[in-house]
């Protein structure tokens, strides 16, 4: 079917080896006029170099405070089919595994209630159903619940859809069951997810090991990263096989040819603490100095594995720049066992939220609140002791806020008796 609009600029994005979203939208436009107008809006933006969408009033489904982003075209005169073009965030199954059955159900529902366009997936991890009208929100939501066993994800000042790396499902390095943890948190905190009640958004992300394949430390207010405390497991024979050129280093990530791995140069010299020794026969790792960076394991996946005493490091506070600048998460719990029902962890989370809720300003992420009020207040609120693992280095400014109860004799003093000792 020929489209009625010309899109000469967008058309330039159909060629080339990378998949073309333009071709794809065109394909959908055959069934959905909204997609044709969507292309029209895009083409206009390409001509004018300005976007054409705007925020609107709050739209959503009954009983939920989020999960839908209201969006309106600022040229409804030209593109009436996308005059209203809201997105629905649908909470992804943890690890983003699907059966084709599930996906087809989703497609059918979205064909009925929406534009037919999606994002697989949004940056937070949701399935993004891209473009529908206010009327369709509620029926679409219920169809998803009844037919696809699916629910809406987070938006606004609420818990956002937690997400995980694929973890134990297909990775030999997962120290924690990221999927079980994230699914449990998602289910446990459904209310927090659907009914914004906080100063701002809050995100959980969990990676099974320090490779952090879900970028938790950069993007999640609470980053749950798998780690271990005991020795790296070593298959010495396999180490020798790597050295001898019998295996493919890095599991093929740097080329799929077998070659002799230079263990000194490619592994030990790049170990951040140089806590390893290789005498040509035996690889020794001095665990007390290992910082579990994963490099040696990454390079020799058939010879090394994380230890058996596994758990997670909890880091808090990552966020994008708005307002005070971007933050990475910081270590708050160096090590915690993560076994269901995760009670210790959840107690920590509740204490953290209570403190944030009580003290946070409007649009202040937890990381910014810790910055503003200081780590001490935060640690005291969550009842944790200070630990050097929480810091890169101790303070270097001398501006120490001692508390009154720490100072012998307290702060109450008497000017008169001071002046008895020191004349003015």
């Amino acid at each position, binding site marked *: 079917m020929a489209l009625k609009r010309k899109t000469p600029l967008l058309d330039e*994005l159909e060629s*080339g080896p990378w*998949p073309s979203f333009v071709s794809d*939208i065109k394909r959908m436009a055959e069934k959905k006029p909204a997609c044709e107008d*969507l292309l029209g809006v895009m083409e206009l933006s*390409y001509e004018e*170099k300005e*976007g054409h*969408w705007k*925020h609107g009033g709050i739209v959503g489904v009954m009983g939920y405070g989020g999960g839908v982003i209201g969006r309106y075209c600022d040229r409804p005169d030209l593109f009436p089919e996308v005059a209203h*073009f809201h*997105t629905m965030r649908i*909470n992804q*199954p*943890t*690890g983003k*595994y699907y059966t*084709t059955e*599930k*996906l087809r159900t989703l497609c059918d529902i979205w064909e009925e209630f929406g534009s*037919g*366009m*999606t*994002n697989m*997936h949004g*940056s*937070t*991890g949701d399935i993004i159903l891209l473009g529908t009208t206010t009327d369709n929100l*509620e029926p679409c939501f*219920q169809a998803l619940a*009844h037919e696809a066993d*699916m629910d809406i994800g987070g938006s606004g000042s609420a818990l956002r859809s937690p997400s995980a790396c694929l973890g134990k499902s*297909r990775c030999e390095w997962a120290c924690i*069951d990221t*999927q079980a943890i994230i699914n449990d948190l998602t289910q446990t905190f*459904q209310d927090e997810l*659907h009914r914004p009640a906080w100063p701002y958004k809050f995100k959980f992300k969990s990676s099974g090991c320090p*490779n*952090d*394949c879900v*970028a938790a*430390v*950069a993007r999640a207010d609470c980053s749950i990263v798998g780690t271990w405390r005991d020795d790296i497991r070593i298959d010495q024979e396999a180490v020798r096989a790597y050295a001898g050129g019998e295996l*493919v280093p890095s599991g*093929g*990530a*740097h*080329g799929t040819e077998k070659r002799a791995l230079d263990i000194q140069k490619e592994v030990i010299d*790049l170990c951040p603490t140089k806590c390893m020794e290789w005498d040509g026969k035996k690889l020794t790792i001095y665990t007390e100095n290992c*910082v579990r*960076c994963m*490099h040696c394991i990454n390079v020799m996946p058939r010879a090394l594995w994380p230890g058996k005493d596994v758990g997670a490091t909890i880091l808090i506070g990552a966020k*994008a*720049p*708005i307002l005070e*600048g*971007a933050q*990475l998460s910081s270590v708050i719990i160096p090590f915690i066992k993560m076994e269901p029902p995760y009670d210790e962890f959840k107690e920590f989370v509740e204490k953290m939220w209570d403190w944030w809720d009580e003290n946070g300003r*409007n*649009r202040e992420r937890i990381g910014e609140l810790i910055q503003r009020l200081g780590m001490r207040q935060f640690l005291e609120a969550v009842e944790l002791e200070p630990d050097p693992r929480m810091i890169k280095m101790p303070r270097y400014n001398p501006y120490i806020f001692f508390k009154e109860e720490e100072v012998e004799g307290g702060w109450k003093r008497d000017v008169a008796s001071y002046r008895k000792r020191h004349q003015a």
Partner: protein
Amino acid sequence: MGKYEYEDRLTDIGPPLYKDMLPPVITKNFGQWKYHEILEPGVLVHVAESGDEIYTVRAGGCRIMSIEHIREICEIADKYCDGHLRFTTRNNIEFLVSDKSKLEPLKKDLASRGNKFPIGGTGAGVTNIVHTQGWLHCHTPAIDASGIVKAVMDDLFEYFTSMKLPAQVRISLACCLNMCGAVHCSDISILGIHRKPPLIEHDRLDAVCEVPLAIAACPTAAIKPKKVKLDDGKEVKSVEVNEPRCMFCGNCYTMCAAMPLADAQGDGIALWVGGKVSNSRTPPTFSKLAVPFIPNEPPRWPSTVKAIRKIVEAYAAGGKKYERVGEWIARIGWERFFEVTGLEFKHQHIDDYRLAMTTWRTTTQFKF
């Protein structure tokens, strides 16, 4: 309410249980994987303690995806994967093959579908670009998202289908300073930026925004309340912006639709380099400014594409094996980075925000 009655309304059911959608071989070997190997770019095998194997074929996804496209994916997955697939954290599609004999036919099939399912994105190459909405759906973008991603990936395609770079190169794009994505910690980041202070629509500002919220939104306290006399003589509550204090973050516009920033000439791209997320070898770190501004050049953003290629090529030429972009720069020094890439060092590169001091060079150690 559509076809479901109010009485039957389901809420707070959460997402479907992931366990129910895993391929049987994964269910069986869950947590029992022994090792993996990338057999060729885009094709992995994971081997379990039990000896069981699962093959993965990774295909580039352009993230924005029609249901027609998803149905095509399903058709393929049914044919070769017993109906099992997944998406990666960087929006690639992973076809999960339990039956080894179906691996080659799957690859052939994918290859036969034009540019729809390029295979690659593993190991020491360029994988999919994490990105955001852009002109396709968001209200605050300074740039498009999908179009730039397409242009850049077309250009870097050879690195998607090979593993010959010194290490993984993670590229991300965010269309405004909200940075929806890990743009602040990527090997290369493409960021949409505005460069003109907000327009102020005095005639409707008070009606559409809460003035105190708009004021509080500004990180540099550039916004002050102001009474304004309109052309018709009416005095209204509005705001004024101390323009030299504005750094175009757009947060005022997020809070107040009567303060738009978008502008064809003002908007464009800043490129950032050297961030990473993994803890491998070196700790996670932010991306740093490489190019302060490149104009928007739809439909294929040639200057941006070229600048990124320059960076990737300099890195390919100079990086040592395992060295991420940021590790490479740390070794050669920023002074050399600007030399080998031919990028210009400008005033904008020198930080002047809150933590600026921590980025200045307080040592005589540098290279001439």
